[in-house]
């Protein structure tokens, strides 16, 4: 029942139009790359200083000077351009990227997102996530609908420290897709995964949404 992680990524990939400039977070978002059609012209941004990020390198192509924001070795593409961190985030903050797709621990019905810190448990730092959610024109969250212990992750108010306020435009989970027209509107359930019922979604969601 519901979508696999790969299917979540595939659904999120449908939001990426031809010619888009896209930043992908770690986890499910990294799978989005596999669902970009061969004829589709999409440029991936790596916030450590690259537009035009290619696949992982072949063994003999590995270059310590060419990594992504997750510190993995990568390759460049024909249209690649390198720049420094200040320019990279000027691009992000200035709203020049079309979409960012990232994971979340919690999303609130008002579009707040928490994905950088679990107090007393895991503190890795926000990295570029706060800049991405604040700056990129459209923010899509991909996540499991509930956490491992079954707790809903789409909630009234986030309990965890926030990454950004009122900045999420779409949520793709293993159960369904929520989206909203603009950041003044409530989220609406726009799609159910196969064999998932509205009731099942409601039972596993603490946020208000239009059905």
């Amino acid at each position, binding site marked *: 029942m519901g979508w696999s992680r790969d299917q979540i990524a595939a659904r999120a990939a449908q939001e990426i139009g031809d010619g888009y400039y896209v930043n992908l977070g770690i986890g499910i978002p990294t799978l989005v790359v596999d669902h970009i059609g061969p004829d589709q012209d999409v440029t991936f941004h790596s916030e450590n200083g690259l537009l035009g990020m290619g696949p992982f390198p072949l063994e003999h192509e590995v270059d310590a000077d060419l990594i992504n924001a997750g510190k*993995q070795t990568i390759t460049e593409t024909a249209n690649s351009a390198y720049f*420094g961190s*200040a320019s990279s985030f000027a691009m992000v903050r200035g709203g020049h990227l079309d979409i960012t797709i990232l994971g979340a621990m919690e999303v609130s019905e008002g579009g707040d997102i928490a994905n950088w810190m679990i107090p007393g448990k895991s*503190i890795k730092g926000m990295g570029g996530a706060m*800049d991405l959610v604040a700056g990129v024109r459209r923010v899509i969250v991909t996540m499991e609908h509930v956490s491992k212990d079954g707790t809903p992750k789409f909630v009234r108010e986030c309990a965890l420290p*926030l990454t950004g306020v009122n900045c999420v435009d779409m949520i793709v989970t293993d159960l369904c897709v929520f989206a909203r027209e603009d950041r003044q509107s409530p989220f609406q359930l726009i799609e159910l995964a196969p064999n998932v019922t509205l009731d099942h979604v409601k039972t596993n969601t603490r946020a208000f949404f239009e059905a």
Partner: protein
Amino acid sequence: MASKVFPDAAAALDGLLFDGMQICSGGFGVCGIPERLIDVLVESGVRDITIASNNCGIDGVGLGKLLLTKQIRKMMSSYIGGNAEFERQFLSGELELEFCPQGTLAERCRAGGAGIPAFYTRTGVGTLVAEGKEVRNFGGEDYLMERGIFADLAIVKAWKADESGNLIFRKTARNFNEVMATAAKVCVAEVEEIVPTGCLEPDSIHIPGIYVKRLVCGAPYDKVIEFRTTRTEDAV
């Protein structure tokens, strides 16, 4: 002119270090880190340093070495993941940490280097990062006021330099090095190759020599890779 080229990293930092100083360091993860200069910081024993750097290397590598020797009083960083000692010192209160979103950190250093004491950004509004900071509304949206960073010393790693200090970076090893070079009273750069002045293309220089007071060639480099990820021929 007194040459900018120094024989080794220790000479390049001679006379510039003092306890309690603030340092801006380039690098992202362990990519493009000024490793020779960091080694000199370790050897020098300079203490109570405040370092603005996206992260603090990884355990025992790069700035991580300065954690092991407890020479750092405070870090201004966006990320401590992948460095257990960093997390441990922070949680135990041994190390002060100012969490700074990656883009805000880059922009704060860019501002400091550009004579801008403060600017407004949407990043971090309504989060822990906003605590104690001025919030101001422009055009119906809230923004945080963030302050410029201008350190006593910047240490950066570049690919090539000419003898007058013009720098060129390579691929994503540019990262924070470019902006950090501008954000301090003195910038010392280590590079893989120093060429005679006149050998670099003037349109392709990333950091003009005006920013670079001292240069050292740190080659040969044996670059550390944090996550070596590869694919096989038929995978794509």
